[in-house]
């Protein structure tokens, strides 16, 4: 079985510029075509340069570059040295990112040295930093390493948990296919080992789906297909196993990219053929694999290969060869601490050497006891459940999100509604304000009119005074003068004619008395109706209306009305109402007759305006500006408006003002 291999050739190689020797050296150290030793030399030179540079972020980046180059040429000691150096620099400058990266590099070093505990330790250190930095991608990467360590330590449950943690962190992070792939692949392996074959197959399929998005040189597809084949083998489905191995082996550049995988596939293919009973390519297929593994010194692979060969020769009844491979495998396992594999070899040994079977069995059981046997049934399902619940929660989140959207839309609509309301409210307020302004303006106009009227009246009064003075002066005084003169003349006469003439002058004096009385009456009558300002205004207004209005206008005033008791504002309002009413009559009523009456009833002074025009539907027009105006005016003066109208039946407007009007 195979998981991953670390490769540190992910950086972009820039075209070299001769001026920058460091860059040139780094480029050279990364040139595939060059000899390993040459690369080592260039890289050491590069290290010399950067070790003299200031400890800044660029410097640390260069350190990592150098470390990468050492790793890639398998100069692990130099790699460790450079990594430890950069860790120091990172600590000195409080550079968490470089520090965690350094720990990652160190973990890789120990991993390569099979010092799992140390690798695990540094991996955990960087894990903590990534949690602190909230760098989910790198955290996922670190956790994946942790899972691999756990898997290697046979901590299947811990591993399972960690892998699901990896997947959780990767959620929503794009360009994380490689890690995601490895996580699914690892899950497949774990469930295979936990004999959860269906789950195992499911996750391998997931892994295969993602594998195509991973760079082909990693040969992820072949890796997972290999694992899948092993799964089928475990289920004794060798036909399927052979099919996937064959498919895996047909992957492009597989031998070149991943010879270990290639060898493993060959071995596995051979073993399935053997299990199936197809010996046509055997044992050569086993040897092809073994040869590659030997050259690459893949210990565990060699052990498996030898176990397989042992089994093969056992079935061929070649017990010598069988025993030879079994023993070789056992020794290798023992010397390399591969306890699980040692168990396998012991099983084989007891079969190939039945005489010693008992002693092998004893060793087997003691070894088996010493291993932590994982209880398959008691495996912790929580991580998986957690993962699946997470999926549900996600869906729930989606629903919540949708609900949120709905709420936002709702809120938006409400907000817009409020806006519209406010705007309309403001508009209405403005309109009201304008109405008030208009009314004020109208009031001013009427005041002006009243003032003009007053002036006119004053003029009339003056001319009347003048007239009276003239009459007194020229008329009565003249007559008196004439009478006096004549009586003076007659004084000198004592005849009868003179006496009778005197009598006529005395009569003349009586006429003069009468004339004086009339003038006096003229003076006192000034106050009354003829000179009443408001009545005059209304009369004048109706006179002008008679010229404009097509209808016949009749006008009457109840003489009982005491105009002086009605305050000016009320009069203005009456006048304005009259104007408004006539505007309506002229515009709409099409009336033949209009009757305007000022009436005194009980304690009310009323203005009624009746026409025999078209009338209107009160409900529809009651909000009309004209009617509103009239209504507001009469209400302002403490009175009320009554309207009687119907289409075709004319209109009666009645405005009643109580006797004690509100002073404004």
């Amino acid at each position, binding site marked *: 079985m195979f998981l991953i291999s670390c490769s540190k050739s992910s950086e972009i190689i820039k075209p070299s510029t001769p001026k920058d020797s460091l860059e040139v050296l780094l480029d050279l150290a990364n040139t595939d075509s060059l000899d390993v030793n040459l690369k080592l030399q260039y890289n050491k030179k590069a290290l010399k340069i950067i070790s003299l540079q200031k400890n800044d972020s660029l410097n640390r980046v260069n350190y990592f570059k150098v470390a990468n180059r050492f790793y890639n040429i398998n100069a692990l000691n130099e790699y460790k040295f450079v990594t430890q150096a950069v860790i120091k620099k990172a600590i000195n400058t409080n550079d968490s990112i470089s520090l965690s990266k350094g720990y990652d590099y160190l973990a890789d070093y120990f991993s390569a040295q099979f010092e799992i505990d140390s690798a695990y330790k540094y991996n955990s250190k960087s894990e903590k930093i990534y949690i602190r930095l909230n760098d989910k991608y790198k955290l996922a990467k670190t956790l994946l390493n942790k899972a691999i360590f756990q898997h290697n330590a046979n901590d299947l449950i811990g591993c399972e948990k960690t892998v699901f943690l990896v997947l959780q962190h990767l959620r929503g992070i794009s360009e994380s296919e490689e890690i995601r792939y490895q996580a699914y692949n690892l899950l497949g392996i774990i469930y295979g080992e936990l004999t959860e074959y269906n789950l195992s197959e499911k996750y391998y399929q997931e892994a295969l789906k993602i594998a195509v998005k991973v760079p082909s040189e990693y040969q992820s597809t072949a890796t997972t297909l290999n694992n899948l084949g092993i799964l089928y083998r475990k289920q004794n489905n060798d036909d399927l196993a052979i099919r996937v191995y064959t498919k895996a082996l047909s992957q492009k550049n597989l031998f070149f990219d991943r010879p270990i995988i290639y060898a493993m596939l060959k071995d596995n293919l051979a073993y399935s053929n053997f299990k199936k009973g197809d010996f046509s390519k055997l044992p050569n297929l086993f040897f092809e694999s073994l040869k590659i593994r030997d050259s690459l010194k893949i210990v565990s692979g060699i052990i498996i290969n030898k176990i397989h060969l042992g089994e093969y020769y056992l079935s061929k009844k070649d017990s010598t060869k069988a025993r030879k491979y079994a023993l070789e495998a056992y020794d290798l396992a023992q010397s390399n601490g591969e306890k699980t594999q040692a168990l396998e070899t012991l099983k084989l040994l007891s079969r190939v050497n039945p005489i010693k079977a008992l002693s092998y069995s004893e060793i087997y059981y003691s070894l088996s006891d010493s291993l932590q046997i994982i209880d398959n049934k008691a495996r912790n399902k929580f991580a998986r459940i957690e993962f699946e619940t997470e999926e549900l929660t996600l869906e729930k989140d989606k629903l919540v999100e949708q609900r949120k959207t709905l709420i936002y839309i709702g809120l938006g609509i409400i907000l817009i509604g409020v806006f519209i309301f406010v705007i309309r409210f403001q508009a209405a307020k403005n309109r009201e304000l304008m109405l008030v302004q208009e009314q004020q303006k109208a009031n001013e106009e009427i005041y002006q009119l009243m003032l003009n009227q007053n002036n006119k009246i004053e003029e009339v009064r003056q001319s009347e005074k003048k007239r009276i003075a003239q009459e007194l002066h020229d008329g009565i005084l003249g007559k008196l*003068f004439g009478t006096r003169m004549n009586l003076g003349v007659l004084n000198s006469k004592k005849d009868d004619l003179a006496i009778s003439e005197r009598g006529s002058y005395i009569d003349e004096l009586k006429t003069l008395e009468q004339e004086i009385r009339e003038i006096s009456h003229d003076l006192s009558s000034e106050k009354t109706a003829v000179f009443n300002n408001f009545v005059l205004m209304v009369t004048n207004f109706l006179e002008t209306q008679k010229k404009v209005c097509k209808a016949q206008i009749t006008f009457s005033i109840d003489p009982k009305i005491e105009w002086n008791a009605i305050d000016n504002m009320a009069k203005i309002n009456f006048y304005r109402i009259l104007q408004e009413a006539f505007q309506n009559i002229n515009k709409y009523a099409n009336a033949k007759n209009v009757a305007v009456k000022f009436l005194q009833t009980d304690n009310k002074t009323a203005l009624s305006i009746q026409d025999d025009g078209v009338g209107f539907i009160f409900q529809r027009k009651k909000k009309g500006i004209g009617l509103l105006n009239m209504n507001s005016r009469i209400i302002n003066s403490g009175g009320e408006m009554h309207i009687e109208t119907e289409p075709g039946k004319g209109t009666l407007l009645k405005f009643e003002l109580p006797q004690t009007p509100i002073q404004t």
Partner: protein
Amino acid sequence: MKKKIQLLMVDDHPFILQAYKNTLERFKPDEYDIINTDADSAKAGYEAIVTSTFEFDVAFLDISIPNYPEKNIESGIDLALLLREKMPNCKIVLLTMHNEKLKFKYFADTIQPNGLVVKNDLTFEELLIAFGKVITGEIYYSETVLKMMQEENA
């Protein structure tokens, strides 16, 4: 032979014209034969002046009379001006109900009348005196007028 005096009287009150006539009948009837011409308005006065075949010797002109806008004759003053033009030898007596001194001054300055009388001062006897003074070429100012003039001069 009695001396003939042509008299023009303009006043809108027939009463007054009658009074003048009645009074002047008593003025030295042995010596003078007074011939009256009446006019009750500016128009009648104007026509009397322009159509007259003889010159008036004396004119009694009331200042406040119904005017005659067609010929721009607003008052007795205008008639007096007309007379001064047409009949320069005519003695003019202005009579008025008014007693404002500014007006008297104006009358005196523009017309230089032979008589200026405030009607209130006038009595039967006083009119006879005034008439007597005017026909002999003296200037007659009635009592109020004299008083005003004195105030003015003082």
